[in-house]
């Protein structure tokens, strides 16, 4: 089962875990990205490309389902304003065994970073700055090329 959500509401990890586990999988790997408080960010704002975002995330989940024979793939991405410590993104991969779940989870978040049309703006001391893309993200995504 593929589950994609892009919405301003806080991410409910317990509910998402229960859905990912529902497919009788033996192994569920997850990744959660959070707004870090340690570098002075007060507010993070997430902008996205409606329609294209959901399509990109769905395509990513389908690729992971096929490549690792998953029972379930979940991608939940928050949009709009959020505060330090809040969850930005949650991905989950459910499989029969752990290697598939762990690899698929890493794939989902690595590829999301380069393939999904989201943009972050950080507000520090009242000043907003658009986050620059990281070189390392391209390399992390490229290691999954077949």
């Amino acid at each position: 089962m593929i589950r994609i959500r892009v919405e301003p509401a806080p991410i409910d990890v317990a509910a998402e875990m229960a859905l990912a586990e529902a497919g009788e999988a033996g192994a569920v790997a997850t990744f959660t990205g959070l707004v870090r408080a340690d570098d002075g960010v007060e507010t993070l704002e997430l902008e996205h490309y409606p329609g294209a975002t959901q399509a990109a995330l769905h395509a990513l989940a389908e690729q992971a389902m096929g490549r690792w024979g998953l029972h379930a793939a979940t991608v939940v991405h928050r949009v709009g304003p959020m505060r330090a410590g809040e969850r930005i993104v949650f991905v989950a991969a459910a499989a029969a065994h752990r290697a598939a779940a762990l690899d698929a989870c890493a794939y989902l978040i690595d590829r999301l970073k380069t393939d999904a049309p989201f943009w972050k703006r950080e507000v520090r001391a009242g000043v907003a700055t658009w986050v620059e893309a990281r070189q390392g993200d391209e390399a992390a995504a490229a290691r999954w090329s077949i």
Partner: protein
Amino acid sequence: MELLYFAWVRETVGLGHQQVTPPDHVATVADLLDWLAADSDAHRAAFADRARLRAAVDQQFLPLDASVAGAREVAIFPPVTGG
């Protein structure tokens, strides 16, 4: 053709979207950026550094030399930073 702008491109252009009818010599995304920049300081500023721009044509992510022939929707934005 509907144009969409995101993140600092949207802020610099000063618009989130606009409807345009480019002339026939506009064949690629890069041509489209040149044509838009010719008549508007805001567009020229937003499109000045092409290395910082990415594009989608009808929601397909493509390089700036991709064709816009027959496109209904072209989006211009910085490299993505989600997750």
